[in-house]
């Protein structure tokens, strides 16, 4: 297998990274809203959030992507397929991240909020200064995990025609008749990206002060 082919795979992997990164960020923003709705204690907000999360965690991502890709034009939204792919990935990761955030907020020890109350914090101050930073730290490992899952899951956007790493590998394998080498190389690139993310996540986690492990 020539270096040229490997270069093409590497270039395509930038799409994989870009799509995953954007989806994780958008998913995080949606997850904040979802977990807020679930922790609001009001059925009016928590029930729809619950259904959203259950649906996007209960349906294979492939089916979600096909559905969104084909549904958007039908309801009059004509966007490039890459947008549909990012929408699909974002909604899916939002559901998982929302569960993480909810768990993180729920596991901030009650005593840490009580001690904030005792030194005169308003509930809002205690939320901003104590609860949010601790919950984010508690959920950080799960976020890194989710990032790796999404990097791998982004391979599925190949089915809606996005030429990211997997689709590029598929195209090249078809045209060169070197499927073994090409898919192994693609796998290697995924592996390296994921190792880097895991390592970087671990380093950041260790530099975050104070959450005992």
């Amino acid at each position, binding site marked *: 297998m020539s270096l040229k082919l490997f270069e093409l795979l590497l270039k395509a992997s930038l799409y994989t990274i870009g799509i995953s990164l954007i989806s994780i960020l958008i998913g995080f923003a949606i997850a904040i809203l979802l977990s807020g709705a679930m922790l609001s204690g009001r059925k009016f907000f928590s029930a729809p959030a619950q259904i959203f999360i259950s649906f996007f965690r209960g349906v294979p991502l492939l089916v979600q992507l096909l559905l969104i890709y084909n549904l958007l034009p039908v309801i009059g939204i004509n966007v490039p397929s890459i947008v549909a792919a990012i929408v699909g990935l974002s909604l899916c990761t939002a559901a998982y991240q929302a569960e993480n955030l909810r768990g993180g907020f729920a596991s901030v*020890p009650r*005593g*840490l909020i*009580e*001690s*904030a*109350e*005792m*030194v*005169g*914090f*308003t509930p809002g*101050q205690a939320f901003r*200064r*104590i609860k949010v*930073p*601790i919950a984010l*730290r508690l959920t950080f490992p799960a976020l890194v995990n989710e990032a790796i899952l999404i990097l791998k899951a982004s391979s599925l956007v190949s089915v809606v025609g996005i030429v990211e790493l997997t689709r590029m590998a598929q195209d090249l394998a078809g045209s060169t008749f070197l499927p073994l080498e090409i898919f192994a190389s693609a796998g290697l690139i995924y592996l390296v990206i994921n190792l880097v993310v895991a390592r970087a996540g671990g380093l950041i986690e260790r530099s*975050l*002060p*104070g*959450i*005992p492990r």
Partner: protein
Amino acid sequence: MSLPAIAVKNLVKQFGETTVLHGIDLDIPQGKVSCLIGPSGSGKSTLLRCMAFLEEATRGTITIDGEVLGFSESAQGVRERLPAATNRAIRSRIGMVFQQFNLWPHMTALGNVSEALKTVHKMSRKDAEDLAMAQLVKVGLESRAGHYPAQLSGGQQQRVAIARALALKPKIMLFDEPTSSLDPELTGEVLNVMRDLAAEGMTMVVVSHEIGFAATVGQQISFLDQGKLLFTGAPSDVFRKPRNPRLEQFLDTYLDRGASMLV
């Protein structure tokens, strides 16, 4: 006679069906160390938490320096929650030390002590940290100012927690089993800080299993059992001639040879 620092009147606390406190009446005198003792589940921690309004009493009132905290109650028993700002203002006279320290893990020792000065009292960063540092010096931890709670021993964490409470210049300090989650060899450093504080004339309410501390530092001892206040008096009355059979039984179990020699 001066106004009690804390006046507890007919305090009832129920968790669902179970009644944890059965109408407690207790005055905490100014400038003295009051100890609440009693077996596990006697309600002493709940009583302390009610004094700080961390628990809402079912009936009865808590009065701090003559001002009602939490809920006011009319003669007809109609309870009314006081505005949150009022409760915060009254509660600012109280400092609280928890069994589990409850230091914020994402802030250094200095950060823990200075946080409320900055966030609540809007002090400048420098002023807040200077004041916080002075408090850490007082508990002997100036060299640990930059450490995170996870890097400190239990005893050190509890001393930081005491410094955090003291930085806000409270008039009353509440201690909820401050040494119960410490290894035995670490309780001394915390008790010493508390002794110093008592010597300065701080009004203190201490829930503790440290009978020795209660006997030597305590000036008023209250014994609770099954949610009832069975006895309140001077330490000499409690430890020399216990008359209540439950108190006698309790002391037999808890009072080891060392503590009885102290008396």
